[in-house]
């Protein structure tokens, strides 16, 4: 792993003004697009996984063009871990909440007892909420997979 990193540093991969500028410009738009894909999953191809992967890709792109530390500056390891847990907790929490409110497990229409919107609207909203959870979890895990695999678990320079 160390040897590969030495080689990569020797050839100055990613240490290029054009790439860095382009990435810096692109990243906000990629993230915006990722959010769009998550929230527009009801009406167009998309949803939690796809949007989450796009969001994760924006951080991976940062780590590729600069180095791993730069992407860690934008999102610390701790935040990332909390986001990952939060994403899964949103999903399982909503599932459990439905059961606790007297419905079946994952029966979003039971949430109607919390705020009255009508059972079918709640189904739609429930799908949206879990997609947000999925998107958060997938983004966080994709980034953490890249960090760990790219640096061999050292979390230093990366590729």
């Amino acid at each position, binding site marked *: 792993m160390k040897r590969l990193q030495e080689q990569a540093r020797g050839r100055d991969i990613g240490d290029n003004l054009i790439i860095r500028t382009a990435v810096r410009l692109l990243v906000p738009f990629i993230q915006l697009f990722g959010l769009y894909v998550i929230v527009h999953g009801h009406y167009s191809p998309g949803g939690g996984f796809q949007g989450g992967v796009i969001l994760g890709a924006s951080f991976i792109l940062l780590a590729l063009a600069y180095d791993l530390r730069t992407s860690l500056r934008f999102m610390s390891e701790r935040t990332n871990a909390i986001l990952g847990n939060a994403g899964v907790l949103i999903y399982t929490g909503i599932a459990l909440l439905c059961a606790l409110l007297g419905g079946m497990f994952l029966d979003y229409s039971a949430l109607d007892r919390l705020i009255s919107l009508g059972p079918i609207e709640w189904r739609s909203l429930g799908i949206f909420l879990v997609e947000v959870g999925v998107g958060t979890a*997938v983004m966080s895990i994709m980034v953490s997979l890249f960090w760990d695999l790219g640096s061999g*678990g050292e979390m230093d320079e990366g590729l």
Partner: protein
Amino acid sequence: MEPLLSEIVAKYNYWIYVVLMMIGFYAMIGKRNLVKKLLGMNIFQTAIILFYVSIGGKRGGGIPIVDKHAAMLHGVDATTVVNPLPHVLMLTAIVVSVSVTGVALAILIRIYRKYDTLEEDEILEKIGR
């Protein structure tokens, strides 16, 4: 020969996936390099994904996103939309395959750190010594 050919033409999707599956499966059990085994696993899983997605195909079917208002008023004709269920299943399978690949790559990095090689024979030799 004639019936076999027409059979192949009518079900060519299965033939394609079986060929892909065989490539992947052979790499998984026949190759001695650990990365090649992992790649074989990915090919195998891709073959399965293609297989499932091809089940959902329907001649003349459109994408499984419908016009909400028209659907609420008149309903949807099932023959005009491809079967969405295999797509859903494969979203799940893709995520599973990504996860397994990630874990396997991490384990490969650890193996490489320990043995300095990814050839199974060399690793076994080093363990034996």
